């Protein structure tokens, strides 16, 4: 014991040199780091933008033959008009009767409800499929394959989207969005025809355009 104490005493006596202070002031370093963080925070985009993939038909391929291939009973034509209005008719338009054109909305109870009803079989199947995937009964690839099978299956409606020049880009995206929500695999964006523009005008005029035309003849 004594020895140890002595040794300790000796040491204390020896270390007469000044102890160097090893503490470094980090404040400027922190300052600089904060500045850099601020810079990076302001310059970055955290969320990558989403995209929607669409494929349009090639222009030449669309002959009149193919255009009329869609069965009238399965076709739904959406007409996107200005001021966020949307109209649709099923099958062939009836130019005489303005009530054949129905007005709808972009809300959940408008267009979506109609499309979900029309596509109920496919929607239910997709729902089942999704449940299977969640339960890990099927793999990702199988899921994708089956999904496209269901979407392209028979008796699913074909949607033709026609936008007037007054419609905005948002309207188009909203309409395309509904296709995705309602699991509709067959849809196409085409140019609006004169007949369709007449339908909208006639609807606005509550059918008077037709009766006027009839009266003139």
């Amino acid at each position, binding site marked *: 014991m004594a020895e140890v104490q002595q040794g300790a005493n000796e040491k204390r006596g020896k270390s007469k040199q000044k102890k160097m202070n090893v503490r470094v002031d*980090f404040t400027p370093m922190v300052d600089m780091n904060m500045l850099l963080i601020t810079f990076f*925070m302001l310059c*970055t985009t955290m969320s*990558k933008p989403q995209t929607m*993939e669409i494929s349009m038909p*090639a222009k030449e391929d669309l002959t009149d033959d193919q255009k009329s291939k869609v069965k009238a009973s399965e076709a739904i034509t959406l007409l996107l008009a200005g001021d966020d209005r949307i109209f649709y008719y099923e099958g062939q338009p009836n130019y005489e009767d303005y009530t054949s054109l129905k007005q709808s909305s972009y809300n959940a109870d408008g267009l979506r409800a109609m499309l979900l009803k029309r596509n109920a079989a496919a929607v239910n199947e997709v729902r089942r499929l999704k449940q299977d995937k969640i339960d890990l009964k099927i793999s990702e690839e199988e899921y994708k394959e089956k999904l496209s099978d269901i979407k392209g299956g028979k008796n699913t409606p074909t949607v033709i989207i026609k936008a007037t020049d*007054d419609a*905005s880009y948002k309207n188009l995206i909203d309409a395309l*969005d509904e296709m995705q929500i309602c699991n509709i695999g067959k849809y196409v964006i085409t140019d609006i025809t004169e007949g369709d523009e007449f339908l909208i005008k006639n609807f606005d005029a509550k059918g008077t355009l037709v009766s006027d035309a009839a009266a003139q003849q």
Partner: protein
Amino acid sequence: MARAKIKKKDTFIDMTAMSDVTVLLLTFFMLTSTFVKKEPVMVSTPASVSEIKIPETDILQILVDPDGKIFMSLDKQQDMRAVLEAVGNDYGIAFTPTEIHKFSLAPTFGVAIGKMKQFLALPSDKQDEILKNEGIPCDSVDNQFKVWVRHAREANRDLRIAIKADQTTPYSVIKQVMSSLQDLRENRYNLITNLKEIED
């Protein structure tokens, strides 16, 4: 007399821990960041439920502002060079190497090819000012947009086309762009949107 000694308080705060934290954060931001590209016009994209992410490379972005002005951007500088030379060739305009170099550094381009030489001669802050009011002509009379896209495709086979348009853009403008792309047999492209939840 013994004076009561006030003990000098040590105000030194140990910043080491703080420094650690900031360095960590800094590393995180540096690694995850993708820089915002400077765009000549502000565009707010419409929302959609689509969850597909856009790839980062080989993108030809077509920017459409509410008034229908069209701008384009490519992500690779070598593509930019090739495209400018090819388009210049088509219109009989030869660009000097310095002009081509200047062009390749620009994040977005959108000037009629006739004005391109003039535009490239300006200092970059002037360029930004002017670019806002320009745009690539895309009408049936003078469809330079088509030429640009065609040469961009030639410069890079794997290019994906992405359209970024403002939600208030009238459909007539979009139709013009889409039918121009259709003429070039570019039938698959992406529409850039924001994420939105499905409300039930």
